[in-house]
């Protein structure tokens, strides 16, 4: 099935990706975010906070936003 996946880590692009039926939020996270801890991310499914065991549905919009993003100042 296809979902819209938005990874706000790095370049922050949105992609339509194929995932297996019955994939949970946590499984998608483990697959897509290398060495990341879910606690360090805001995870939203269809713009709503999601639990780790939520099973994704076709057409879902999933976004991972890190809670720590470094700004800058002087170069």
């Amino acid at each position, binding site marked *: 099935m296809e979902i819209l996946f938005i990874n706000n*880590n790095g*370049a*922050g692009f949105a992609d339509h990706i194929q995932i297996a039926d019955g994939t949970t939020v946590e499984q998608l996270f483990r697959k897509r975010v290398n060495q990341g801890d879910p606690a360090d991310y805001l995870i939203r499914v269809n713009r709503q906070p999601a639990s780790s065991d939520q099973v994704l549905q076709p057409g879902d919009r999933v976004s991972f936003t890190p*809670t720590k993003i470094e700004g*800058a*100042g002087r*170069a």
Partner: protein
Amino acid sequence: MPSFDPVFWRAAGHLEQFLKTRAGDSHPVTLDRRSFQQLQVLTARLASVEQRDWQLSVQLVAQQLHAQLKTCECQITNALECLTPRNFSPAAPAAAEIYEELSALRDEFEVCEVNLREGTLSVVTESVVLEDIDLGSFRIILNWKAVPEPAGSAPYKVEAVTPCHPDGQSDITHPHVMRDRLCEGDATCTLQQALRAGRLTDFFQIINQVLHTYNSGSPYARLGEWDGSDCHACGASVSDDGSYCDFCQSQVCEDCSSFCSLCDTSACQSCLKSCRNCDSVICPECAEECGDCEGVFCSKCLNPNELCKDCDHADESEELESNTDSPPEESAPRVAVQSAGLGQIAVPT
């Protein structure tokens, strides 16, 4: 299901036009030449300080170079991604989709406001606390009417709700915010993409996360410079939990505050007095003036007549002296008047 909000719907229409305009105006591949020039400068500087074996400088320049490399890396990544076919003509989101974003935004932030007249969409963050320093809340304002300055930058600003500045730098309200502009750092590409795609919840949330993160390698001002307010008495920095004078309400540092020796009230050095007699520290309420010399004394050092010891003694001495100076009448020199013919007598002068 939340009820329909006509203001949000109208804002969604404006934002749809705004995002379409931006998508058409901007070329997707943008590289800042100055960033790459700066990279060369820092590379040469690092080689120079390494050659001289200036260890502290090596560390500092390496940090700067690291930050600059990240900036350039971000630009290159963004440019590469922009060249993929799917991103050449990103479809601007429709008003209905933007409306959904606005509704979600209201769930994410306690304060989410639209001002149709000014053309702004704003949210207020929770209080930002970095390494125990409370910088207060920030209002993130996206303006769909204003022309962003500098050209090409994101059309938003970040205003401190209750500005808290580092010492002597009133244009800085956050380690990464100067003149209400956020230096996006690692978030640059993500923010551009989120805005371009009309993902407003992501856009505001990413800014919020940047505000809640401290990059010690590249701030406008280091957190150590936010020691709080200045001491009213000596001008030194005072942390927020510093003491306040109970009389003038000024915030003062530990060195400039003390307690009244009589009533234990805390006060600043300006308000506290010192007893002229016993030197004890006293607050304005416990301080009393001598009825004669008007000097400040503690209540213990004034007699029941509200006179200090010196004035009391002076009074006594004066009294004594005046008694000595004015002898009783019987001791006044007498001028003896004799009957004529009894001889002469000396007349005292």
